[in-house]
């Protein structure tokens, strides 16, 4: 502001209202823009999938099936129970695949290795492969509970 321009109450209030108006209007526009660009998605719902019957999967055997997105899920009979493992690597989301001759899962993106129970053997994955809950009903049908949007 030039020195000869004296700040009056009127000019101060005018600037204040102008500033507040600009802040509110652009702030509202920014909020709308932010909300517009932030994606919204439905909360995943639990769903039970019939995979196999228990007598078809003896201890030590594995079988694979796909979820609704088409991703592979591995069902293992560990002897002490059934384990359903996601094949999505817990490091950075690539797909790990089962190497039958070495009995481990291998993620090719950053060399992550998991054993048959999904536990990390070596490499950078921070935690075991995700597990899904398994239920066996009175007729020995094996169900896996998944959460899908």
């Amino acid at each position: 502001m030039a020195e000869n321009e004296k700040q009056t109450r009127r000019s101060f209030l005018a600037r204040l209202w102008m500033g507040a108006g600009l802040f509110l209007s652009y702030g509202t526009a920014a909020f709308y823009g932010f909300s517009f660009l932030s994606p919204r998605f439905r909360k995943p719902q639990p769903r039970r999938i019939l995979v196999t019957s228990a007598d078809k999967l003896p201890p030590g055997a594995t079988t694979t099936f796909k979820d609704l997105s088409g991703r592979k899920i591995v069902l293992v009979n560990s002897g002490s129970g059934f384990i359903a493992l996601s094949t999505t690597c817990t490091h950075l989301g690539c797909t790990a695949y089962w190497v039958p001759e070495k009995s481990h899962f291998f993620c090719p993106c950053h060399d992550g290795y998991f054993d048959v129970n999904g536990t990390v053997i070596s490499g950078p994955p921070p935690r075991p492969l995700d597990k899904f809950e398994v239920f066996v009903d009175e007729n020995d049908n094996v169900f896996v509970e998944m959460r899908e949007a």
Partner: protein
Amino acid sequence: MSAIKSLQTWAKESFPLDLDVLKEMSSEPIPYHLKRWWFAVGGTPLYLFVIQAVTGIMLTFYYVPEPAEAYNSVARITNEVPFGWYLRSIHKWSANLMVAAVILHMLRVFFTSAYRKPREFNWMIGAGLLLTSCVFGFTGYSLIYEQISYWAAVVGTNIAEATPLIGGWLANFARGGPEVGANTLTRFFVFHIGVLPTVMVILLVLHVVQIRLHGVTRLRFDERGEPGVGLSISVSAPVTPMEFREGSAGAATKEEKSPTFPFYPDHFYTELIIGLVLTFLLTILTLVAPAHLGEPANPLVTPEHIKPEWYFYATFRWLKLTSFAIGVIGTMIFVLVFIFWPFIDRWLVRRYPAKEISFWVGVAGFAIYMIFTLWEAFV
């Protein structure tokens, strides 16, 4: 004749340019060391960016940013559209050369300490330009929707998800949902052709304005590096910007002067020649190694052998070698140190005035980058 005269008058009235001012603006004194190509590499990324903008706009005429059609449209560009393979290859190679040119330019700036006061902000803009170039590359090869595209997008957005506090939002924002899919492709396309070019142009303008405001860094060479004779940067007494005087061993006084030459025509012609050589180089690279097309994206199967573009090799190797937290957080710390290096350097110079620690940090940093890059390339 009168028609030409009236046209001239109209042009003068419509564009009242003062030619003397224009002449003065274009004859900015350039330090003599810019006669050497190594010091003139700063204009190269700009030239390559223009090539990418032109070829990119042309490719957009045929590209379809939709998962079911993206790969097919790139295949059509490559195999059916007249000279499509050539334009796509020029686009790809100019992107690669641009990243390489920015890295070379930043190396030159680093090892001549040209980022020091008062040019700290310009270094940060330069770092922003390098990061923008890398994101350009990342979004660019994700658009092809081949296997490497899809899985690079998966890994890249998962890295973003690990960002403290805003990671979840950032990853969902980039993907347009919880997983890589149709929304991701649309968003990457918008980033690649809209957001990033805008950011790039703003940063480039700021960068050039800063250079014009501060002038090109005048460097003091050691006794073997007489201007115009040949480059010789000694390790014990590196070249030093003349303005910087904060206990540095190579500091110079303001009275020291170095010969200069005008920007136009001398340096302008140098840039033109570099541009010509680059065009030649791009064509050779395109003919020898045209851009190929891999397997189409399969969201269910990660290919057994997967690698990103070469400029991410070092990060890729680092992520393989370390745990998740160290891998991701370490990468972020490296990027932050890189951006704010001028201030870290200033602290180091104050703390250890007699030692050129920054120089050796640079040597170590670049050596590690190269070792990781080569390791990933050949193993």
